[in-house]
């Protein structure tokens, strides 16, 4: 029996640690279509000083770190509502100050978006949480799997890290 047995998970982005934990906890990973869980992992952006960032680079970071996440979550929540099912969303990324100002903006926005969506969708049974960390290890995988599962049924709108500098 795993935390996610009989549950399907759509993972967007790359993280071998998260894949390993999801699989170990019995989740079925799906690329498209209905899923009980949406996990979005944003790849780290280049760490450049603000005055060296082009607007195109800025936009790309904000898209990957914020806009795309919102749109995917919105789409996921709409699909779950249509099915009359709850679900959970977990966003994963680097800590706010770890990279450039583009990432700082996106990660800060994402944190407060998480708190907002967690409440806005609470009575749809859809939970929304975020892990901002420099860790990419078994703890990250297990934490994300736990947050995705019903064991975290009372955790929503939470933003957390893993290590001392998160």
């Amino acid at each position, binding site marked *: 029996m795993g935390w996610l047995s009989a549950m399907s998970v759509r993972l967007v982005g790359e993280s071998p640690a998260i894949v390993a934990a999801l699989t170990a906890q019995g989740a079925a990973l799906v690329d498209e279509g209905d899923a009980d869980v949406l996990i979005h992992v944003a790849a780290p952006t280049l760490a450049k000083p603000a005055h060296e960032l082009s607007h195109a680079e800025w936009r790309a970071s904000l898209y990957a770190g914020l806009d795309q996440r919102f749109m995917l979550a919105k789409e996921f929540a709409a699909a779950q509502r249509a099915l009359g099912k709850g679900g959970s969303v977990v966003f994963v990324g680097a800590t706010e100050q770890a990279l450039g100002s583009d990432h700082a903006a996106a990660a800060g926005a994402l944190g407060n978006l998480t708190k907002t969506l967690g409440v806005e969708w609470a009575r749809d049974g859809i939970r929304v949480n975020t892990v901002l960390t420099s860790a990419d290890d078994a703890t990250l995988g297990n934490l994300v799997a736990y947050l995705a599962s019903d064991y975290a049924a009372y955790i*929503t709108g939470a933003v957390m890290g893993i*290590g001392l500098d998160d």
Partner: protein
Amino acid sequence: MPVPSHHIIATPPPFNEPPYPADVFAGQTVLVTGGGSGMGLAMAMAFAQGGAHVAVMGRDLEKAQVAAARIAELGVKAHGMSCDVRLPEAVAAAFDEAERILGPVSLLANNAGANFPVLAEDISVNAWNAVTRIAIDGTFLCSSEFARRRIALGEGGAIINNSAQYIWTGFPGDAHSAAAKTAQATMTKKMARDWAAYGIRVNAIAAGFFPHESSTAGRREGGTESLQNMIPAGRTGSIWEFGWLSAMTCTPLLGALTGQVIVQDGGESLRRSLMMPDFVPPRERAEGPWGWR
């Protein structure tokens, strides 16, 4: 009002399906302060579900012993004892007693606390001292005693602190606890840093509303049924899901987790809107959450 029937409520698995193996803490001993009832007892039960032996510490020896007997039914060794966590010598003696009977304490759950709704101007010096020092000094004294022993043994360990969801917002009508619980959360982060090199992890749960038989809400007339709809999640917390998260942070499954304050409150601390009911100062509220005077 009851929760409308078309709302979907996320619920945890039942108590007998903990999220970790029954031997995840095998051979280890946890000391739980304020473990005789309520959230502390829930922490103690959760550690016992992972196979830890449990030292249950409380102000009331008899209550701690009754709790220990309940915990032992889960198949672990449990020992009830009394201690005032504000007194360093008493804390050291309690660790001695726990270790003599159960072996080295490698896990610590700081739950001891007192709390009651009261207007700030009505908080006596004694009440202020009791609430703040049990949580603030108690957490410091128990954690530092624990750490000194682990460091002397050359072994790591894990600490979990029971903080509260109102640590970021203040808690009008509960000034002593608002101060105390935030102190616990901020010391969590610094102690995690102080002891990282020794393999001692320190985390906290910013807990929401988990009614139990000894909480103010638990004793409320009419029970807690009418409180479910005020939480965004559509329910108050189940005491065992708090216990599980507390114990989870101490497992090797989350072996890199340290310095974190994890909020578990069903969205309670986040509910707000542009338009809200008129503000009424706590003093002028005809009824507080459960009546001011």
